[in-house]
């Protein structure tokens, strides 16, 4: 054990920070390796968390160990063996598992401490598949959408339950219960810890992408609360998408999603004003946009196209985001191209939100008169009732058409429906300005 270089003597705080840092980097590989060797995802996650808890106590007393990852893995393995031994009294199969783990099957690397590249206590040929399998199991269709999000952030992203709870503005016990339930569901259904078979792979990958998208969306347009953006949560989604892009480089939509996230996040610095209030696209100071993020987004979109299988829904949305990112103002944006991209998106992934966005693009390209009937049609269909987006777009179009009184009613309705306080105040400001 070595004392923490920067923080002086070990303390609860220094231990927490050290554990958090290692866990963030290694959780996926640790849980992945444990799940493969125990063949039990629930147990793997449980013992990994127990190791983290033990680390918080031990490291605050003795300092961070020289090989923190090996420490965590060895501790988790010991816990798994204990559990198998306890269970072997009831079932002989567990005795076999316990002895297999005791023989050190789990560790393949820690032999020569002078060779740093061999430090990592797992099989480099299999760890990529293990991390990927972990993503698939965390996003498994038997789980509720909320459970997929919580489990992915916890086991793949290495966030604590407290961090996840803070990000989603729910009490920590709620997240803990969600995760426990998710693990029990996976065990009850008997989901094996392995990569999905080839014929299911594409569909299941779509499930993983949508979980990452949901995480990002929650960070980029908080559905509730008094903050418009939670950049750290959005960044977490980008980090996970980068991990996935490295693990599944031959899928166009993985790069498409990464491109979409990078290009959307590029606008974050301009999306809120000094007091955290929302700044609309037309009023954003485009000089604040993160050019490196735009460059990374363009590169990811390029990789998606280069696979030669056409763009999917994420790739199309990324292309739309790129139309905005490469324009110097709303006026100079290529709205005709955006209309085309939305039309393609309507066919590939139809949804009322996409139709609404297409109507907005048509308003920009051809004028509000052309867009209003599309919005009225959506209103009549009732498919977006309860969402503040429909009345806020309708209000906007009515303003442009000079129908002020009707516009105000729509904006007030939108404000009533909106759950984000920051967005709501923008809508109310607009409505008041019409008086």
């Amino acid at each position, binding site marked *: 054990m070595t004392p923490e270089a920067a923080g002086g003597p070990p303390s609860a705080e220094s231990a927490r920070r050290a554990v958090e840092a290692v866990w963030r*980097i290694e959780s996926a590989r640790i849980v992945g390796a444990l799940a493969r060797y125990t063949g039990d995802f629930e147990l793997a996650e449980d013992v990994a968390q127990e190791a983290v808890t033990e680390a918080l106590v031990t490291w605050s007393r003795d300092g961070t160990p020289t090989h923190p990852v090996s420490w965590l893995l060895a501790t988790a393995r010991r816990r798994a063996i204990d559990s198998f031994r306890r269970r072997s009294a009831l079932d002989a199969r567990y005795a076999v598992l316990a002895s297999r783990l005791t023989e050190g099957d789990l560790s393949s690397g820690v032999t020569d401490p002078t060779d740093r590249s061999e430090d990592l206590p797992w099989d480099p040929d299999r760890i990529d598949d293990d991390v990927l399998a972990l993503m698939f199991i965390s996003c498994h269709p038997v789980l509720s959408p909320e459970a997929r999000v919580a489990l992915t952030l916890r086991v793949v992203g290495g966030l604590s339950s407290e961090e996840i709870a803070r990000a989603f503005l729910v009490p920590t016990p709620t997240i803990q219960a969600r995760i426990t339930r998710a693990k029990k569901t996976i065990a009850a259904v008997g989901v094996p810890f392995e990569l999905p078979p080839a014929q299911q792979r594409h569909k299941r990958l779509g499930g993983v992408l949508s979980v990452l998208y949901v995480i990002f969306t929650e960070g980029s347009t908080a559905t509730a609360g008094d903050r418009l953006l939670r950049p750290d949560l959005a960044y977490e989604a980008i*980090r996970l998408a980068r991990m996935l892009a490295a693990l599944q480089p031959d899928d166009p939509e993985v790069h498409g999603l990464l491109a979409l996230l990078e290009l959307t996040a590029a606008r974050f610095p301009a999306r809120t004003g000094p007091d955290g209030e929302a700044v609309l696209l037309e009023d954003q100071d485009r000089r604040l946009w993160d050019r490196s993020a735009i460059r990374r987004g363009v590169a990811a979109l390029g990789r998606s196209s280069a696979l030669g299988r056409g763009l999917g829904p994420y790739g199309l949305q990324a292309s739309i985001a790129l139309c905005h990112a490469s324009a110097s103002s709303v006026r100079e944006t290529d709205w005709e191209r955006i209309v085309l991209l939305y039309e393609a998106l309507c066919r590939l992934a139809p949804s009322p939100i996409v139709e609404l966005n297409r109507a907005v693009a048509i308003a920009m390209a051809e004028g509000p008169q052309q867009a209003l009937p599309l919005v009225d049609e959506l209103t009549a269909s009732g498919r977006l009732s309860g969402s503040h987006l429909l009345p806020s777009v309708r209000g906007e179009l009515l303003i442009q058409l000079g129908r002020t009184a009707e516009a105000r009613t729509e904006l007030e309705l939108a404000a009533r429906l909106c759950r984000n306080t920051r967005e709501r105040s923008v809508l109310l400001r607009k409505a008041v300005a019409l008086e």
Partner: protein
Amino acid sequence: MAKYMLIMRGTDESVAKMMATPFEEMLETVGRFNEELIRAGVLVAAEGLDDPAQGVVVDFSGETPVVTDGPYGETKELFGGFYVIDVASKEEAVEWAKRLPAVAGSKCEVRRVPGIEEFPQDNEWIIKERAWRERTGQL
């Protein structure tokens, strides 16, 4: 999230040791580490520096700058290169630094890289710098 620079600092001895390492071997270990950073989604930038013997030192101890050729002789430390990573905390940056495939005797300094948004935005030089960053994608 914050950006941190991992600054590689060597000594004459550690640099000599590194130079003695077979190129293929070095490429393999450094490449493997870089790949880890890429896969973790944290790598922003990285550069390694050429042989210090090819370098030059500009010394400001006198009234006018004095230029001397490398090798540096009495210098205690030589910069060898850097990584810029985007991570959640200083501890995470340090955790990555600890994994550097560094030669014995060398050091790695971990420093936060402040973003341009931390400077006064109405300063004319900051405005100019921002414009340059915007043109070149260095933000």
